[in-house]
């Protein structure tokens, strides 16, 4: 294989990567984006939002998911941390949906997939929850009452 062939392939892949950027919101494109990974690791150090629930109108807000500690023995088996990481990416995705939605007309967060996922997550883990909220540090992003929906 010569250098010219490598250059042509590289340019082709680069062109594909750029054109993919135009359709990045398509899930079909997202599902093959593994060919052009973004390689973002901890470049954003800001806090992630967390999901809280409460059991009645006056009770304290409690965290639904908490990160687990890992020890060396978890190198070959760490399901809880990996599930937590999945939850963590769902929270990040939800935050992006809310921020992006602010620029759209008639945006209703309650109509999004992320909202349905959060609501389902709360109802599955805490069937008697009265309400839930998503909060970024001390700021509430939204609060939703589940009264009568459990």
């Amino acid at each position: 294989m010569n250098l010219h062939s490598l250059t042509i392939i590289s340019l082709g892949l680069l062109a594909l990567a750029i054109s993919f950027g135009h359709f990045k919101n398509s899930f079909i494109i997202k599902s093959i984006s593994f060919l052009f990974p973004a390689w973002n690791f901890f470049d954003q150090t800001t806090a992630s939002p967390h999901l809280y629930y409460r059991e009645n109108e006056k009770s304290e807000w409690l965290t639904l998911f908490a990160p687990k500690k890992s020890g060396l023995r978890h190198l070959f088996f760490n399901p809880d941390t990996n599930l937590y990481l999945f939850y963590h990416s769902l929270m990040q995705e939800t935050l992006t949906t809310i921020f992006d939605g602010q620029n759209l007309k008639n945006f209703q967060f309650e109509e999004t997939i992320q909202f349905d996922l959060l609501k389902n997550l709360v109802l599955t883990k805490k069937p008697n929850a009265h309400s839930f909220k998503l909060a970024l540090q001390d700021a509430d992003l939204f609060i939703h009452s589940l009264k009568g929906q459990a």
Partner: protein
Amino acid sequence: MAPLTIFEATRLSSKILSIGLIVNSLEYFFLIFKKQTLESFPWRILKRKSFSYLPLGSDTTLKALVAFNFMFAILLFNISSPIILGFLFLIQWLFVVRFGGTFNGGSDSLQLLLLFCLFLHFCFDTNSFISIASILYLAVQVLLSYLIAGLKKFKSKDWLTGKALQKLAFNRSFSLPSFITNLFQNRLISTITGYLVLVFELSFVAILIPKLTGIYFLLGFLFHLINFFIFGLNRFFFAWMATYPILLFFVQFMQAKYF
């Protein structure tokens, strides 16, 4: 050190990848039998993202996918066949669809890329253009994974001012070992550690220099081990380790040509 042949490199990568996939399968099994995982992230909602016609909603389907993943991963340890790699790729891709995205971000992406490149490699004659190009593409992506991650951190004010690791330790998104949290309370230690990460990632391409190859492979191994120890990223450890034999082949290939 005798140069690694492309066959040896891809075989060794397949073996390490198979260990990573076995670990993934066991974790998925545990989460499925814990029940709440499936019910918490149901297909009836996630299918609205795409591929809604795929029958991925039932417990049985997911259990079957995990069982096949486990079985093919064991086979991959001994046999690098395009059929096994193709099936494993398909199963991993179905996991991405089922969970509306990668379950564990970068590690799942790298495993998919690795499976895809190994699949292409074993589909064609070892010395054919596509076979070699797929392996070289993978190796370049591994080098980029360090370089791009370093460049993105370099643009971040928190990383440059030494606050990044302190913020990561205290923002409640991760549960770090307590002695690490205590260490990062010291601004000087967190700043020095942050800069060491930056320098390591940005300079990783120096692995191409013959005298530094061994040192960078050792540093890379320690880097992923420490990341696992601090953040619990075990899947990342296996995913990156699986690429190292191919990366070594690439490094030796480049050194033979240009050094």
